[in-house]
C-alpha cells in the first residue's frame, strides 16, 4: 500500500468518514447492470438457499429454495435463475458493430485485416463482495456439465433446459473477473474499496455494510460508529440488524429462524415455504439495497477516460464467448491445458500492467502515488534546447530541462514517456541531472514529433509548461508470443492433442448438488 493510501486511511480515522483514493471512477459501470445477491446453505458445497436478482432496483426477483437438500427444489431454483439471467446476458448478443482487426491468415501466414463483429454492449453482473464472485464461479462449475433430458435421455436426474448454458456463462463471468481491470463481473466491496479509503483495515472493508457506513455515514454518526452498528447491532431477538452480505448467512439466523422454518416445511405444514421466502427476503433485501447504494456513490464519480478502453476488451470477451456458444463448442473444461493456462496468465499480467498505467494516466491522485514511488515525475520546463540527429535527414532530438520536486529513480538513458496533447504517448530518454541545480534534470525527446525536420507544433513542451513524465510505458504489451498449441514444449506436457470430452459429474445417492 502506498504511503498516500495510508495517509488517506489516517485522515479517514481523523475525520470519521472515508477519504477519496481517486478523482475519477476507474471501472466502467453499465447503464443497466444485473445485480445478483446469492445466499448459500452453511456447510454445503453448492446448495443455494436463495437469491435476489434483477436489473431494476425497485423490483428484484426473489428466488428461494425452501429445502436446500432437495435436488428437485434446487433445480427449480436454477431454472428460475436461468430464466432471469439468460435473457439479460443474451440481450447484448444481437446489437453489433464491425471492427477491423489483424489476424494471421492460416494459409499464407501473413497478417491480414479482417472485419469482425463486436457487440455494442455487454452484460455486467454486480455482486456484493469477493465471496459473491467465488460463488458465481462455483455455480457455474456446478451447472455447466449437467445434462438436460434433451441432450441425454438416459440422464438419471436431467437438469432443466437452460441450466447448463447458464453454467457456461457464469463460468465465463467468473473467469473474466480474474483479469485485472475487467468489468463483466464486479464485487461491490472491491469497487468501493478502490475508490475510497476508510478508517478501518482492508480486512474489515470486506463487510459491505461497514464499508458503506464509512463512505456515507448516516446523519449524526461517525464512520466508525456506523460501521460498528453495521457489523454487530442485533435486535431484541438476537438477529443482526444488517445481515451479512452473503453468500454465507449469520449462524444466529440459521439456528433460530431458518432451521425451524425448514423443519416446518419438511413436516408439510401449510405456509412454511411462504415463511421461508419472507425470512430470506429479510436477509437479502438490505444487501440488495446496499449494492445499489454503492452504484449511486460510484456513478457520482466521472468515469476515467481509459476505463472505456478496458470495457471494450470486456465487450470483445463477451463477443468471443457468444461465438463459442453459437458454434456449439463444449463447456469450458474442468482444468485448463498448459497452453490455455499460459495464455490466460500472460493475458492477466499484461492487463495488470495496462491497468496500472491507465489508472495513473487517468487520475492525478493515482499518479501522485507513482510519483512518490519514483516511477514518474512532474515539473516545470525551464529550458528547451533544439538538437538534431546527425543522419542524412536530420531528426529533431530536443533537450528539455525540467525542475521537479519528485525523486524519480532514473538511470542514464532510461526511457521516459509523456502524454501529448493529442493523447498519444511521446518517448524520451533521461539525459542527466543538471549539475549544481538540485531537482533539475534533462530529458531528450526521441519521438512523437512527426516526420519532418522540424517538430510538429505542440509536440515539444515550451518553457513554463508543466509536464509529467512516467518511467513506465503507457500501453505496455505482453511478453513474447506463445508457441502454437501443436508446438507446446514437453516441459508443458507436449501438444495437448484432441481435448477429451468432459463427462458430467457422477450422480451419487447422497442428495447433494
Amino acid at each position: 500500500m502506498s504511503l498516500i493510501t495510508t495517509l488517506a486511511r489516517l485522515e479517514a480515522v481523523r475525520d470519521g468518514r472515508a477519504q477519496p483514493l481517486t478523482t475519477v471512477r476507474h471501472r466502467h459501470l453499465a447503464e443497466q447492470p444485473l445485480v445478483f445477491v446469492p445466499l448459500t446453505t452453511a456447510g454445503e458445497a453448492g446448495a443455494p438457499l436463495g437469491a435476489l436478482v434483477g436489473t431494476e432496483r425497485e423490483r428484484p426477483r426473489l428466488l428461494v429454495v425452501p429445502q436446500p437438500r432437495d435436488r428437485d427444489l434446487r433445480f427449480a431454483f436454477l431454472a428460475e435463475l436461468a430464466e432471469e439471467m439468460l435473457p439479460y446476458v443474451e440481450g447484448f448478443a444481437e446489437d453489433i458493430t464491425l471492427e477491423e482487426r489483424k489476424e494471421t491468415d492460416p494459409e499464407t501466414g501473413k497478417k491480414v485485416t479482417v472485419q469482425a463483429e463486436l457487440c455494442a454492449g455487454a452484460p455486467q453482473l454486480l455482486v456484493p463482495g469477493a465471496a459473491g464472485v467465488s460463488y458465481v464461479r462455483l455455480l457455474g462449475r456446478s451447472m455447466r456439465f449437467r445434462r438436460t433430458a434433451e441432450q441425454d435421455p438416459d440422464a438419471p436426474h436431467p437438469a432443466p433446459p437452460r441450466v447448463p448454458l447458464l453454467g457456461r456463462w457464469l463460468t465465463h463471468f467468473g473467469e473474466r473477473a480474474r483479469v485485472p481491470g475487467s468489468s463483466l463481473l464486479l464485487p461491490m466491496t472491491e469497487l468501493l474499496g478502490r475508490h475510497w479509503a476508510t478508517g478501518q483495515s482492508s480486512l474489515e472493508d470486506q463487510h459491505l455494510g461497514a464499508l458503506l457506513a464509512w463512505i456515507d455515514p448516516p446523519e449524526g454518526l461517525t464512520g466508525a460508529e456506523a460501521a460498528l452498528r453495521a457489523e454487530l447491532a442485533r435486535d431484541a431477538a438476537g438477529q443482526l440488524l444488517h445481515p451479512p452480505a452473503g453468500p454465507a448467512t449469520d449462524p444466529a439466523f440459521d439456528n433460530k429462524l431458518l432451521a425451524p422454518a425448514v423443519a416446518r416445511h419438511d413436516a408439510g405444514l401449510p405456509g412454511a415455504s411462504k415463511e421461508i421466502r419472507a425470512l430470506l427476503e429479510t436477509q437479502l433485501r438490505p444487501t440488495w439495497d446496499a449494492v445499489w447504494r454503492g452504484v449511486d456513490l460510484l456513478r457520482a464519480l466521472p468515469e476515467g477516460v481509459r476505463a472505456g478502453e478496458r470495457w471494450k476488451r470486456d465487450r470483445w470477451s463477451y463477443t468471443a464467448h457468444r461465438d463459442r456458444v453459437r458454434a456449439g463448442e463444449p463447456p469450458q473444461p474442468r482444468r485448463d491445458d498448459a497452453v490455455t493456462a499460459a495464455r490466460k496468465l500472460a493475458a492477466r499480467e499484461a492487463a495488470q500492467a495496462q491497468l496500472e498505467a491507465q489508472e495513473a494516466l487517468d487520475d492525478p491522485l493515482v499518479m501522485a502515488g507513482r510519483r512518490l514511488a519514483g516511477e514518474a515525475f512532474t515539473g516545470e520546463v525551464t529550458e528547451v534546447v533544439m538538437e538534431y540527429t546527425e543522419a542524412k535527414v536530420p531528426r529533431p532530438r530536443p533537450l528539455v530541462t525540467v525542475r521537479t520536486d519528485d525523486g524519480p529513480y532514473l538511470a542514464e538513458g532510461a526511457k521516459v514517456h509523456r502524454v501529448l496533447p493529442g493523447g498519444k504517448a511521446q518517448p524520451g530518454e533521461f539525459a542527466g541531472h543538471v549539475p549544481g541545480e538540485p531537482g533539475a534534470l534533462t530529458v531528450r525527446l526521441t519521438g512523437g514529433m512527426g516526420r519532418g525536420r522540424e517538430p510538429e507544433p505542440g509536440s515539444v513542451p515550451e518553457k513554463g509548461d508543466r509536464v509529467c513524465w512516467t518511467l513506465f510505458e503507457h500501453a505496455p504489451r505482453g511478453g513474447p508470443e506463445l508457441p502454437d498449441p501443436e508446438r507446446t514444449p514437453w516441459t508443458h506436457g507436449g501438444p495437448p492433442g484432441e481435448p477429451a470430452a468432459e463427462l458430467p459429474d457422477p450422480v451419487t445417492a447422497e442428495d447433494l448438488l
Partner: protein
Amino acid sequence: MTRSPDSRPTAGPAKAAPATLRQRLAELRGPGSTPRPLDARALAALAANPGCRRRVLLDGAGVDKSALARALGAPAASGQSQFAIARGHSFEARAKADGGTELVRLLHEQLRDGTAAPEPGSADVPDLTAGGPEGRTARTALALREATAAGRWALLDHPLLALPVAGAPAFLEPDAVVVHPDGTWTVVEIKSFPVIDGAADPGKVGAAARQAAVYVLALEELAARTGDGDPARVRHEILLVCPKDFANVPVAGLVDVRKPRATTRRQLARLARVEDIAAELPAGTTFDLCLADDGKTAHRPAGELAAAVEAVGAAYAPECLAACELAFHCRARARAEGSVATLGRGLRGELGGLTTVESVLAAALGDAPVPEEAPGGAPDPTVVALRRAAALRAEALAPPLTGIEAAACR
C-alpha cells in the same frame, strides 16, 4: 531421549500446573467456573499472534472469552450454523464408516509406497472411552502403544492428546489418528469444505494444516515420553479428508505440515508463561463475571471487568477479529487510543516509530522542521516520506482551476 516440542522441560501433562498456579488460575476465572479447554483451533490462533499476553493469560486460565466479551459489551458474532454442524457430522461419519476401512484405504492409496492394500475391516479400532480428560489421554497413550506394537493398521477415533502450553496443559482432540503397520502415526483431519476438480480453497487448507500441526506436535510430545520414545514416528504429512466436488464422497490428500509445525512450535515456545503474566497482575485481579443463577447474566460491573482486562496488555491486529472472541473489545480500546494497529499490520510497519494516528498526521501535515533520527544525524526518513506523500496528495486533490482562473494564471 527426551525432547519436548517447545524445548522446555515438561512434567506430565496433567500435572504441568503446580497447585499454586492452578489455584491462581482458578481465582482468575472466578470461583465455581470450570476452565474452558484450549482446542487446536485456539492454539493455532494463539500461535498466530504470540505477542498477545492478554490472550495467553485468558486462554491459559481457561476463561470463557465469549462470556467475558458479552459482559464487556463487545460481543463477537460467534457460534456455528446447525446446518454446517449437521453436515460436518454426517460427512465425518461417512468418512469413518465400516470400522475405518474407507479411511485406511484412502490413506494407503495416498501413500503410494507399494505395500499391499489393507483388507477391508482389517484395521483395529480400539475403544478409547475413559473418565475425564486425564483418563482419556492415558487411555489414548496406552492404545497408541499397543497399536504400534501390534504392527497392524489401527484407527484411533477421536483420541485425546495433551500438550503443555505456556505452562498449562491443553487437551486436544484430533478427528482421528491412524497407526501404520510399520509403527508410524498419521494425523487425520476431516473437513467439510469441498475439493472441486482437485483443488480446495487454499485459505481453508492452510487453516486445517495449522490445526493439524498442533496435533502433530502433541503426538510428538507423547511419542517422546512413551517408553521407546521416538518423535520421528509421527509422520509430518497429515491426511486431509474432504468431500469430492459436490457429492458426499470423501477424497483425501496428504498435506505436509512441517512448516506450520515449525511455526507453531516456535511461537508456542515464545509465549510468555502464564505463570509470569499472572504474577505481574495487581493482587486480586480476577475475570470473574459473578454470574447470576441462570449462568448467563453477569453481575460484575463492566468497568471493573474492563480494568481487569486492561491490566494485561494485548497486541491487537485486524486478523484477531476472525480468531478471538475478545477482538471487538480490543479493537475498541485500540481505536480509543488512536493506535495505527487498527488499520492493519502492513500499514503499521510502514510508519516506523509513529504508532498513533495523531502523531502520524502531525508529522505529515505539520510544518515544524523534520526531527533528526539521531542528534546531528539525517532527518527521520519516515517523516520526510510522509511530508512528501501529504504534499502530493494535497496537490492532486486541490480543486481544479475553473476556466477563468486558469486563464488568469497564464
